[in-house]
Protein backbone atom coordinates (compact mmCIF):
# COMPACT_ATOMS: atom_id res chain seq x y z
CA UNK A 1 0.00 0.00 0.00
CA UNK A 2 2.81 2.32 0.86
CA UNK A 3 4.55 1.53 -2.38
CA UNK A 4 1.34 2.18 -4.29
CA UNK A 5 0.86 5.55 -2.65
CA UNK A 6 4.43 6.40 -3.47
CA UNK A 7 3.86 5.56 -7.11
CA UNK A 8 0.71 7.61 -7.26
CA UNK A 9 2.20 10.67 -5.61
CA UNK A 10 5.38 10.40 -7.59
CA UNK A 11 3.29 10.09 -10.72
CA UNK A 12 1.41 13.17 -9.66
CA UNK A 13 4.69 15.05 -9.49
CA UNK A 14 5.79 14.07 -12.99
CA UNK A 15 2.19 14.58 -14.04
CA UNK A 16 2.69 18.22 -13.23
CA UNK A 17 5.37 18.41 -15.89
CA UNK A 18 3.13 16.72 -18.41
CA UNK A 19 0.30 19.02 -17.41
CA UNK A 20 2.45 22.05 -18.12
CA UNK A 21 3.51 20.73 -21.51
CA UNK A 22 -0.08 19.79 -22.27
CA UNK A 23 -1.19 23.31 -21.40
CA UNK A 24 1.42 24.81 -23.68
CA UNK A 25 0.32 22.54 -26.52
CA UNK A 26 -3.34 23.35 -26.04
CA UNK A 27 -2.71 27.08 -25.90
CA UNK A 28 -1.19 26.98 -29.33
CA UNK A 29 -3.74 24.51 -30.64
CA UNK A 30 -6.67 26.62 -29.48
CA UNK A 31 -5.57 29.69 -31.32
CA UNK A 32 -4.16 28.13 -34.45
CA UNK A 33 -5.52 24.58 -34.67
CA UNK A 34 -1.98 23.41 -35.11
CA UNK A 35 -0.03 21.04 -32.94
CA UNK A 36 3.36 22.48 -32.08
CA UNK A 37 5.70 19.53 -32.55
CA UNK A 38 8.63 21.75 -31.65
CA UNK A 39 7.33 22.51 -28.15
CA UNK A 40 9.68 20.04 -26.50
CA UNK A 41 12.76 21.33 -28.28
CA UNK A 42 11.96 24.92 -27.36
CA UNK A 43 11.79 23.81 -23.74
CA UNK A 44 15.06 21.89 -23.97
CA UNK A 45 16.87 24.79 -25.52
CA UNK A 46 15.61 27.14 -22.84
CA UNK A 47 16.77 24.70 -20.19
CA UNK A 48 20.21 24.73 -21.76
CA UNK A 49 20.25 28.52 -21.52
CA UNK A 50 19.46 28.20 -17.83
CA UNK A 51 22.18 25.61 -17.46
CA UNK A 52 24.68 27.90 -19.10
CA UNK A 53 23.77 30.79 -16.85
CA UNK A 54 24.04 28.65 -13.75
CA UNK A 55 27.36 27.22 -14.84
CA UNK A 56 28.85 30.67 -15.20
CA UNK A 57 27.76 31.62 -11.71
CA UNK A 58 24.20 32.99 -11.76
CA UNK A 59 22.17 32.10 -8.69
CA UNK A 60 19.48 29.54 -9.50
CA UNK A 61 16.37 31.68 -9.26
CA UNK A 62 17.94 34.53 -11.21
CA UNK A 63 18.79 32.11 -13.99
CA UNK A 64 15.29 30.66 -13.73
CA UNK A 65 13.58 34.00 -14.22
CA UNK A 66 15.92 35.14 -16.97
CA UNK A 67 15.31 31.86 -18.75
CA UNK A 68 11.57 32.42 -18.57
CA UNK A 69 12.09 35.77 -20.22
CA UNK A 70 14.28 34.19 -22.86
CA UNK A 71 11.77 31.43 -23.53
CA UNK A 72 8.98 33.98 -23.89
CA UNK A 73 10.90 36.05 -26.39
CA UNK A 74 11.96 32.92 -28.26
CA UNK A 75 8.34 31.83 -28.57
CA UNK A 76 7.23 35.21 -29.84
CA UNK A 77 10.11 35.38 -32.31
CA UNK A 78 9.45 31.92 -33.69
CA UNK A 79 5.80 32.72 -34.24
CA UNK A 80 6.40 36.04 -35.92
CA UNK A 81 9.27 34.94 -38.12
CA UNK A 82 8.86 31.30 -38.98
CA UNK A 83 5.30 30.28 -38.30
CA UNK A 84 3.42 33.33 -39.49
CA UNK A 85 3.99 32.88 -43.24
CA UNK A 86 2.32 29.48 -43.05
CA UNK A 87 -0.98 30.37 -41.41
CA UNK A 88 -3.05 29.75 -44.47
CA UNK A 89 -0.91 26.86 -45.71
CA UNK A 90 -2.24 23.32 -45.94
CA UNK A 91 -1.85 21.02 -42.98
CA UNK A 92 0.98 19.07 -44.55
CA UNK A 93 3.12 22.15 -44.97
CA UNK A 94 2.52 23.32 -41.46
CA UNK A 95 3.44 19.99 -39.93
CA UNK A 96 6.56 19.86 -42.08
CA UNK A 97 7.50 23.33 -40.84
CA UNK A 98 7.04 22.33 -37.22
CA UNK A 99 9.13 19.23 -37.71
CA UNK A 100 11.73 21.38 -39.39
CA UNK A 101 11.67 23.67 -36.38
CA UNK A 102 12.06 20.67 -34.11
CA UNK A 103 15.13 19.59 -36.03
CA UNK A 104 16.73 23.00 -36.16
CA UNK A 105 16.32 23.73 -32.48
CA UNK A 106 17.41 20.22 -31.55
CA UNK A 107 20.58 20.52 -33.57
CA UNK A 108 21.19 24.00 -32.17
CA UNK A 109 21.08 22.52 -28.69
CA UNK A 110 23.52 19.85 -29.74
CA UNK A 111 25.83 22.20 -31.58
CA UNK A 112 26.02 24.85 -28.89
CA UNK A 113 26.00 22.63 -25.85
CA UNK A 114 27.20 19.23 -27.15
CA UNK A 115 25.55 15.88 -26.73
CA UNK A 116 26.95 14.75 -23.42
CA UNK A 117 24.45 14.28 -20.65
CA UNK A 118 24.60 17.07 -18.12
CA UNK A 119 23.29 17.19 -14.58
CA UNK A 120 20.95 20.05 -13.83
CA UNK A 121 20.61 21.42 -10.32
CA UNK A 122 17.42 21.40 -8.37
CA UNK A 123 16.64 24.43 -6.22
CA UNK A 124 15.07 22.11 -3.67
CA UNK A 125 17.83 20.64 -1.49
CA UNK A 126 17.62 16.90 -0.96
CA UNK A 127 17.46 17.21 2.79
CA UNK A 128 14.77 19.90 2.92
CA UNK A 129 12.07 19.74 5.55
CA UNK A 130 9.26 19.29 3.10
CA UNK A 131 10.46 15.98 1.77
CA UNK A 132 8.62 12.98 3.12
CA UNK A 133 8.30 9.25 2.91
CA UNK A 134 6.46 9.43 -0.38
CA UNK A 135 7.98 12.34 -2.18
CA UNK A 136 11.46 13.74 -2.51
CA UNK A 137 11.87 17.49 -1.88
CA UNK A 138 12.34 18.01 -5.58
CA UNK A 139 9.07 16.28 -6.34
CA UNK A 140 7.31 18.42 -3.78
CA UNK A 141 8.97 21.45 -5.32
CA UNK A 142 7.88 20.36 -8.81
CA UNK A 143 4.27 20.12 -7.73
CA UNK A 144 4.47 23.48 -6.03
CA UNK A 145 6.04 25.25 -8.99
CA UNK A 146 3.61 23.63 -11.40
CA UNK A 147 0.67 24.83 -9.38
CA UNK A 148 2.07 28.33 -9.09
CA UNK A 149 2.56 28.55 -12.84
CA UNK A 150 -0.87 27.13 -13.60
CA UNK A 151 -2.48 29.48 -11.09
CA UNK A 152 -0.74 32.50 -12.59
CA UNK A 153 -1.78 31.46 -16.08
CA UNK A 154 -5.34 30.99 -14.91
CA UNK A 155 -5.45 34.40 -13.27
CA UNK A 156 -3.90 35.97 -16.33
CA UNK A 157 -6.45 34.58 -18.72
CA UNK A 158 -9.49 35.07 -16.55
CA UNK A 159 -8.86 38.44 -14.97
CA UNK A 160 -6.68 40.56 -17.18
CA UNK A 161 -7.73 42.48 -20.32
CA UNK A 162 -4.84 40.99 -22.26
CA UNK A 163 -5.85 37.50 -21.24
CA UNK A 164 -9.39 38.24 -22.33
CA UNK A 165 -8.16 39.53 -25.66
CA UNK A 166 -6.08 36.40 -26.18
CA UNK A 167 -9.02 34.12 -25.42
CA UNK A 168 -11.19 36.11 -27.77
CA UNK A 169 -8.57 36.09 -30.53
CA UNK A 170 -8.25 32.32 -30.24
CA UNK A 171 -11.97 31.78 -30.45
CA UNK A 172 -13.10 34.36 -32.96
CA UNK A 173 -10.39 36.40 -34.64
CA UNK A 174 -12.85 38.33 -36.81
CA UNK A 175 -14.97 39.61 -33.95
CA UNK A 176 -11.84 40.32 -31.96
CA UNK A 177 -10.45 42.48 -34.72
CA UNK A 178 -13.68 44.43 -34.69
CA UNK A 179 -12.98 45.19 -31.06
CA UNK A 180 -9.55 46.49 -31.93
CA UNK A 181 -7.61 43.42 -30.82
CA UNK A 182 -4.40 42.93 -32.76
CA UNK A 183 -4.97 39.27 -33.40
CA UNK A 184 -1.56 38.64 -34.94
CA UNK A 185 0.21 39.78 -31.80
CA UNK A 186 -2.16 37.79 -29.62
CA UNK A 187 -1.02 34.68 -31.40
CA UNK A 188 2.59 35.66 -30.94
CA UNK A 189 1.94 36.20 -27.23
CA UNK A 190 0.35 32.79 -27.04
CA UNK A 191 3.50 31.26 -28.44
CA UNK A 192 5.56 33.27 -26.00
CA UNK A 193 3.53 32.04 -23.07
CA UNK A 194 3.65 28.48 -24.32
CA UNK A 195 7.42 28.75 -24.62
CA UNK A 196 7.62 30.11 -21.09
CA UNK A 197 5.50 27.31 -19.66
CA UNK A 198 7.58 24.77 -21.57
CA UNK A 199 10.75 26.24 -20.09
CA UNK A 200 9.39 25.77 -16.59
CA UNK A 201 8.62 22.16 -17.42
CA UNK A 202 12.10 21.69 -18.81
CA UNK A 203 13.87 23.15 -15.81
CA UNK A 204 11.77 21.11 -13.43
CA UNK A 205 12.30 17.86 -15.23
CA UNK A 206 16.00 18.19 -16.04
CA UNK A 207 17.23 17.41 -12.50
CA UNK A 208 15.37 14.11 -12.70
CA UNK A 209 16.08 12.85 -16.21
CA UNK A 210 19.28 14.81 -16.91
CA UNK A 211 19.86 17.30 -19.63
CA UNK A 212 20.65 16.27 -23.17
CA UNK A 213 19.28 17.45 -26.52
CA UNK A 214 16.73 14.63 -26.59
CA UNK A 215 15.48 15.20 -23.06
CA UNK A 216 12.03 16.40 -23.94
CA UNK A 217 11.22 13.89 -26.68
CA UNK A 218 9.30 11.51 -24.52
CA UNK A 219 8.04 14.28 -22.23
CA UNK A 220 6.50 15.90 -25.28
CA UNK A 221 4.79 12.64 -26.10
CA UNK A 222 3.37 12.32 -22.59
CA UNK A 223 2.27 15.93 -22.80
CA UNK A 224 0.46 15.11 -26.05
CA UNK A 225 -1.17 12.12 -24.44
CA UNK A 226 -2.32 14.30 -21.56
CA UNK A 227 -3.61 17.01 -23.87
CA UNK A 228 -5.52 14.50 -25.96
CA UNK A 229 -6.88 12.76 -22.91
CA UNK A 230 -8.21 15.97 -21.46
CA UNK A 231 -9.35 17.44 -24.73
CA UNK A 232 -7.03 19.24 -27.08
CA UNK A 233 -9.18 22.34 -27.14
CA UNK A 234 -9.68 22.51 -23.38
CA UNK A 235 -6.74 23.92 -21.45
CA UNK A 236 -7.78 22.82 -17.98
CA UNK A 237 -8.89 19.45 -19.24
CA UNK A 238 -5.45 19.09 -20.74
CA UNK A 239 -3.87 19.94 -17.40
CA UNK A 240 -5.95 17.29 -15.70
CA UNK A 241 -5.06 14.89 -18.50
CA UNK A 242 -1.38 15.54 -17.87
CA UNK A 243 -1.70 14.62 -14.22
CA UNK A 244 -3.65 11.51 -15.09
CA UNK A 245 -1.01 10.41 -17.57
CA UNK A 246 1.69 10.92 -14.94
CA UNK A 247 -0.07 8.73 -12.43
CA UNK A 248 -1.07 6.13 -15.02
CA UNK A 249 2.49 5.98 -16.25
CA UNK A 250 3.88 5.22 -12.82
CA UNK A 251 1.26 2.63 -12.03
CA UNK A 252 1.65 0.95 -15.40
CA UNK A 253 5.40 1.04 -15.04
CA UNK A 254 5.41 -0.44 -11.56
CA UNK A 255 2.68 -3.02 -11.87
CA UNK A 256 1.94 -3.76 -15.49
CA UNK A 257 4.57 -3.45 -18.17
CA UNK A 258 7.76 -2.38 -16.52
CA UNK A 259 9.49 0.89 -17.04
CA UNK A 260 11.02 0.20 -20.44
CA UNK A 261 7.77 0.34 -22.32
CA UNK A 262 6.60 3.71 -21.04
CA UNK A 263 6.64 5.37 -24.41
CA UNK A 264 4.69 2.48 -25.86
CA UNK A 265 2.09 2.97 -23.16
CA UNK A 266 1.85 6.59 -24.21
CA UNK A 267 1.49 5.48 -27.81
CA UNK A 268 -1.35 3.17 -26.87
CA UNK A 269 -3.06 5.92 -24.89
CA UNK A 270 -2.75 8.34 -27.76
CA UNK A 271 -4.10 5.96 -30.36
CA UNK A 272 -6.77 4.75 -27.99
CA UNK A 273 -8.10 8.25 -27.38
CA UNK A 274 -7.90 9.26 -30.99
CA UNK A 275 -9.92 6.25 -31.97
CA UNK A 276 -12.46 6.13 -29.16
CA UNK A 277 -13.05 9.74 -28.32
CA UNK A 278 -10.89 12.19 -30.24
CA UNK A 279 -12.22 15.17 -28.39
CA UNK A 280 -10.91 13.79 -25.13
CA UNK A 281 -12.67 13.58 -21.80
CA UNK A 282 -13.58 17.24 -21.59
CA UNK A 283 -13.23 18.62 -25.07
CA UNK A 284 -15.99 19.65 -27.40
CA UNK A 285 -16.85 17.15 -30.11
CA UNK A 286 -15.10 18.05 -33.28
CA UNK A 287 -17.34 19.33 -36.01
CA UNK A 288 -16.13 19.68 -39.55
CA UNK A 289 -17.88 21.83 -42.06
CA UNK A 290 -18.79 20.15 -45.26
Amino acid at each position, binding site marked *: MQAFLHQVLSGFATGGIYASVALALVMIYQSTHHVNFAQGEMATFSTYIAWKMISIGFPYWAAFLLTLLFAFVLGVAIERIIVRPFYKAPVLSVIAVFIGLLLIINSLSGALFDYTIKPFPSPFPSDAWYGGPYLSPHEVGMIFVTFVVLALVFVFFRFTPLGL*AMRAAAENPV*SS*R*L*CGVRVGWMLALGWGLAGLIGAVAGMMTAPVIYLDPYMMFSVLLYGFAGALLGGIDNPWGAVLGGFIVGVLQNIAGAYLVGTELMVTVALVIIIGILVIKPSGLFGRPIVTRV
Partner: protein
Amino acid sequence: MSAILETRGLSAAYGPTRVLQSIDLSVPERGIVTLLGANGAGKTTTLRALCNMMVRVSGEIRFEGQRIDGKATEDIVRLGIGHVPDGRGTLVSLSVEENLRLGAYTRRDARVAQDFERVYGYFPRLKERRRQQAGTLSGGEQQMLAISRALMLRPKLMLLDEPSFGLAPLVVQEIFRILRTINEQEGMSMLLVEQNANIALELASEAYLLETGRIMLSGPAATIGSDESVRRAYLGY
Protein backbone atom coordinates in the same frame (compact mmCIF):
# COMPACT_ATOMS: atom_id res chain seq x y z
CA MET B 1 -23.22 69.12 -42.05
CA SER B 2 -19.99 67.48 -43.03
CA ALA B 3 -19.70 63.84 -43.82
CA ILE B 4 -18.19 61.58 -41.20
CA LEU B 5 -17.70 58.86 -43.78
CA GLU B 6 -17.15 59.21 -47.51
CA THR B 7 -16.26 56.74 -50.18
CA ARG B 8 -15.19 57.41 -53.70
CA GLY B 9 -14.89 54.67 -56.25
CA LEU B 10 -14.97 51.97 -53.64
CA SER B 11 -14.59 48.57 -55.24
CA ALA B 12 -14.22 45.19 -53.64
CA ALA B 13 -13.44 41.68 -54.76
CA TYR B 14 -13.34 38.22 -53.28
CA GLY B 15 -10.38 36.70 -55.00
CA PRO B 16 -10.93 37.20 -58.71
CA THR B 17 -14.63 37.99 -58.35
CA ARG B 18 -15.54 41.66 -58.35
CA VAL B 19 -18.44 42.25 -56.03
CA LEU B 20 -18.59 46.03 -55.64
CA GLN B 21 -18.20 48.39 -58.56
CA SER B 22 -17.14 51.88 -57.76
CA ILE B 23 -19.42 52.84 -54.89
CA ASP B 24 -19.76 56.47 -53.88
CA LEU B 25 -21.57 57.07 -50.67
CA SER B 26 -21.40 59.36 -47.68
CA VAL B 27 -22.75 59.38 -44.16
CA PRO B 28 -23.41 62.82 -42.68
CA GLU B 29 -22.35 63.51 -39.15
CA ARG B 30 -25.02 62.49 -36.65
CA GLY B 31 -27.01 61.03 -39.50
CA ILE B 32 -28.39 57.61 -40.17
CA VAL B 33 -27.93 56.22 -43.64
CA THR B 34 -29.30 52.94 -44.83
CA LEU B 35 -28.00 50.70 -47.55
CA LEU B 36 -30.71 48.58 -49.11
CA GLY B 37 -30.85 45.88 -51.69
CA ALA B 38 -31.69 42.27 -52.38
CA ASN B 39 -29.67 39.28 -51.29
CA GLY B 40 -26.32 39.21 -52.95
CA ALA B 41 -26.36 42.87 -53.90
CA GLY B 42 -23.16 43.48 -52.00
CA LYS B 43 -24.43 45.14 -48.84
CA THR B 44 -22.42 43.10 -46.39
CA THR B 45 -19.43 43.37 -48.67
CA THR B 46 -19.67 47.15 -48.47
CA LEU B 47 -19.44 47.11 -44.70
CA ARG B 48 -16.60 44.63 -44.84
CA ALA B 49 -14.80 46.76 -47.35
CA LEU B 50 -15.10 49.78 -45.07
CA CYS B 51 -13.32 47.81 -42.35
CA ASN B 52 -10.94 46.09 -44.75
CA MET B 53 -11.95 42.62 -43.70
CA MET B 54 -12.08 39.55 -45.89
CA VAL B 55 -12.16 41.43 -49.19
CA ARG B 56 -9.66 43.06 -51.48
CA VAL B 57 -10.48 46.73 -51.52
CA SER B 58 -9.65 49.54 -53.89
CA GLY B 59 -10.81 53.11 -54.01
CA GLU B 60 -10.95 55.88 -51.46
CA ILE B 61 -12.49 55.74 -48.04
CA ARG B 62 -12.39 58.79 -45.84
CA PHE B 63 -13.33 58.83 -42.17
CA GLU B 64 -13.51 62.27 -40.63
CA GLY B 65 -11.61 63.48 -43.64
CA GLN B 66 -8.69 61.05 -43.28
CA ARG B 67 -8.03 58.18 -45.70
CA ILE B 68 -8.53 54.84 -44.03
CA ASP B 69 -8.43 52.51 -47.02
CA GLY B 70 -5.56 50.08 -46.70
CA LYS B 71 -5.44 50.23 -42.92
CA ALA B 72 -5.76 47.06 -40.88
CA THR B 73 -9.19 46.28 -39.50
CA GLU B 74 -8.14 46.70 -35.89
CA ASP B 75 -6.64 50.10 -36.65
CA ILE B 76 -9.78 51.29 -38.45
CA VAL B 77 -11.82 50.20 -35.46
CA ARG B 78 -9.54 52.10 -33.11
CA LEU B 79 -10.26 55.30 -35.03
CA GLY B 80 -13.84 55.13 -33.84
CA ILE B 81 -15.81 52.89 -36.17
CA GLY B 82 -17.89 50.24 -34.49
CA HIS B 83 -19.04 47.31 -36.57
CA VAL B 84 -21.94 45.06 -35.67
CA PRO B 85 -21.24 42.22 -38.05
CA ASP B 86 -23.30 39.94 -40.16
CA GLY B 87 -24.29 36.99 -37.96
CA ARG B 88 -23.67 38.98 -34.79
CA GLY B 89 -20.14 37.70 -34.19
CA THR B 90 -20.84 36.70 -30.61
CA LEU B 91 -17.87 35.28 -28.74
CA VAL B 92 -19.79 32.29 -27.57
CA SER B 93 -17.50 30.89 -24.92
CA LEU B 94 -17.12 34.22 -23.14
CA SER B 95 -19.72 35.59 -20.77
CA VAL B 96 -21.95 38.51 -21.69
CA GLU B 97 -19.93 40.78 -19.48
CA GLU B 98 -16.67 39.57 -21.01
CA ASN B 99 -18.04 40.27 -24.47
CA LEU B 100 -18.73 43.82 -23.41
CA ARG B 101 -15.37 44.19 -21.76
CA LEU B 102 -13.77 43.07 -24.97
CA GLY B 103 -15.65 45.80 -26.77
CA ALA B 104 -13.95 48.31 -24.50
CA TYR B 105 -10.56 46.65 -24.98
CA THR B 106 -8.96 49.59 -26.74
CA ARG B 107 -10.18 52.22 -24.34
CA ARG B 108 -7.93 53.78 -21.77
CA ASP B 109 -10.30 56.37 -20.34
CA ALA B 110 -12.09 56.16 -17.02
CA ARG B 111 -15.63 56.13 -18.34
CA VAL B 112 -15.72 52.42 -19.12
CA ALA B 113 -17.57 51.48 -15.93
CA GLN B 114 -20.15 54.14 -16.72
CA ASP B 115 -20.58 52.69 -20.16
CA PHE B 116 -21.48 49.31 -18.78
CA GLU B 117 -24.37 51.00 -16.97
CA ARG B 118 -25.31 52.95 -20.05
CA VAL B 119 -25.46 49.82 -22.15
CA TYR B 120 -27.38 47.91 -19.49
CA GLY B 121 -29.72 50.87 -19.45
CA TYR B 122 -30.50 50.38 -23.12
CA PHE B 123 -30.71 46.61 -22.84
CA PRO B 124 -31.75 45.55 -19.34
CA ARG B 125 -32.00 41.94 -20.47
CA LEU B 126 -28.26 41.87 -20.92
CA LYS B 127 -27.76 43.00 -17.36
CA GLU B 128 -29.86 40.11 -16.12
CA ARG B 129 -27.75 37.68 -18.09
CA ARG B 130 -24.41 39.29 -17.66
CA ARG B 131 -22.61 36.29 -16.19
CA GLN B 132 -24.18 33.87 -18.59
CA GLN B 133 -22.21 32.31 -21.42
CA ALA B 134 -22.95 34.38 -24.48
CA GLY B 135 -23.58 31.32 -26.63
CA THR B 136 -26.68 30.51 -24.59
CA LEU B 137 -28.45 33.76 -25.42
CA SER B 138 -31.36 33.96 -27.81
CA GLY B 139 -30.98 35.53 -31.24
CA GLY B 140 -32.47 38.80 -30.16
CA GLU B 141 -30.31 38.96 -27.08
CA GLN B 142 -27.20 38.19 -29.10
CA GLN B 143 -28.11 41.05 -31.42
CA MET B 144 -28.44 43.35 -28.44
CA LEU B 145 -25.09 42.05 -27.22
CA ALA B 146 -23.48 42.69 -30.58
CA ILE B 147 -24.75 46.24 -30.66
CA SER B 148 -23.66 46.78 -27.08
CA ARG B 149 -20.23 45.40 -27.78
CA ALA B 150 -19.86 47.97 -30.51
CA LEU B 151 -21.24 50.67 -28.21
CA MET B 152 -18.57 49.89 -25.62
CA LEU B 153 -16.07 51.19 -28.11
CA ARG B 154 -17.75 54.62 -27.92
CA PRO B 155 -17.60 54.83 -31.69
CA LYS B 156 -18.32 57.94 -33.67
CA LEU B 157 -19.76 55.84 -36.46
CA MET B 158 -21.56 52.55 -36.14
CA LEU B 159 -21.90 50.08 -39.00
CA LEU B 160 -24.76 47.64 -38.59
CA ASP B 161 -25.17 44.58 -40.78
CA GLU B 162 -28.77 43.36 -40.93
CA PRO B 163 -29.62 43.79 -37.26
CA SER B 164 -33.17 42.59 -37.92
CA PHE B 165 -32.09 39.27 -39.39
CA GLY B 166 -33.93 36.31 -37.95
CA LEU B 167 -35.62 38.29 -35.21
CA ALA B 168 -39.26 38.52 -34.23
CA PRO B 169 -40.95 41.81 -35.29
CA LEU B 170 -41.45 43.00 -31.73
CA VAL B 171 -37.79 42.50 -30.93
CA VAL B 172 -36.84 44.30 -34.10
CA GLN B 173 -39.03 47.25 -33.15
CA GLU B 174 -37.41 47.43 -29.76
CA ILE B 175 -33.90 47.35 -31.16
CA PHE B 176 -34.61 49.99 -33.76
CA ARG B 177 -36.24 52.21 -31.18
CA ILE B 178 -33.08 51.99 -29.11
CA LEU B 179 -30.93 52.73 -32.15
CA ARG B 180 -32.93 55.90 -32.73
CA THR B 181 -32.47 56.86 -29.09
CA ILE B 182 -28.73 56.30 -29.29
CA ASN B 183 -28.50 58.40 -32.41
CA GLU B 184 -30.54 61.24 -30.94
CA GLN B 185 -29.02 61.27 -27.47
CA GLU B 186 -25.41 60.62 -28.33
CA GLY B 187 -25.18 61.92 -31.85
CA MET B 188 -23.72 58.67 -33.12
CA SER B 189 -23.69 58.39 -36.89
CA MET B 190 -24.91 55.12 -38.33
CA LEU B 191 -24.66 53.21 -41.57
CA LEU B 192 -27.29 50.56 -41.58
CA VAL B 193 -27.41 47.65 -43.99
CA GLU B 194 -30.84 46.08 -44.08
CA GLN B 195 -32.97 43.72 -46.08
CA ASN B 196 -36.04 44.85 -44.20
CA ALA B 197 -36.39 48.08 -46.15
CA ASN B 198 -39.56 49.14 -44.42
CA ILE B 199 -38.14 49.48 -40.97
CA ALA B 200 -34.80 50.77 -42.22
CA LEU B 201 -36.43 53.64 -44.08
CA GLU B 202 -38.36 54.58 -40.94
CA LEU B 203 -35.10 54.99 -39.03
CA ALA B 204 -32.79 56.45 -41.61
CA SER B 205 -32.72 59.91 -43.12
CA GLU B 206 -30.96 58.86 -46.31
CA ALA B 207 -30.98 55.70 -48.33
CA TYR B 208 -28.83 54.06 -50.99
CA LEU B 209 -30.03 51.23 -53.16
CA LEU B 210 -27.51 48.59 -54.11
CA GLU B 211 -27.97 46.12 -56.93
CA THR B 212 -25.28 43.69 -58.09
CA GLY B 213 -22.55 45.85 -56.67
CA ARG B 214 -23.68 49.20 -57.97
CA ILE B 215 -25.61 52.08 -56.46
CA MET B 216 -28.81 52.32 -58.47
CA LEU B 217 -30.50 55.03 -56.50
CA SER B 218 -29.93 57.34 -53.61
CA GLY B 219 -31.83 60.06 -51.82
CA PRO B 220 -33.77 61.00 -48.73
CA ALA B 221 -35.34 58.03 -47.07
CA ALA B 222 -38.80 59.53 -47.12
CA THR B 223 -38.70 60.08 -50.86
CA ILE B 224 -37.51 56.60 -51.62
CA GLY B 225 -39.95 55.12 -49.21
CA SER B 226 -42.90 56.88 -50.75
CA ASP B 227 -42.00 56.23 -54.37
CA GLU B 228 -44.24 53.33 -55.40
CA SER B 229 -42.33 52.29 -58.48
CA VAL B 230 -39.03 52.23 -56.64
CA ARG B 231 -40.54 50.27 -53.81
CA ARG B 232 -42.02 47.73 -56.13
CA ALA B 233 -38.96 47.42 -58.35
CA TYR B 234 -36.28 47.29 -55.72
CA LEU B 235 -37.80 46.80 -52.32
CA GLY B 236 -40.44 44.24 -52.99
CA TYR B 237 -43.42 45.94 -51.43
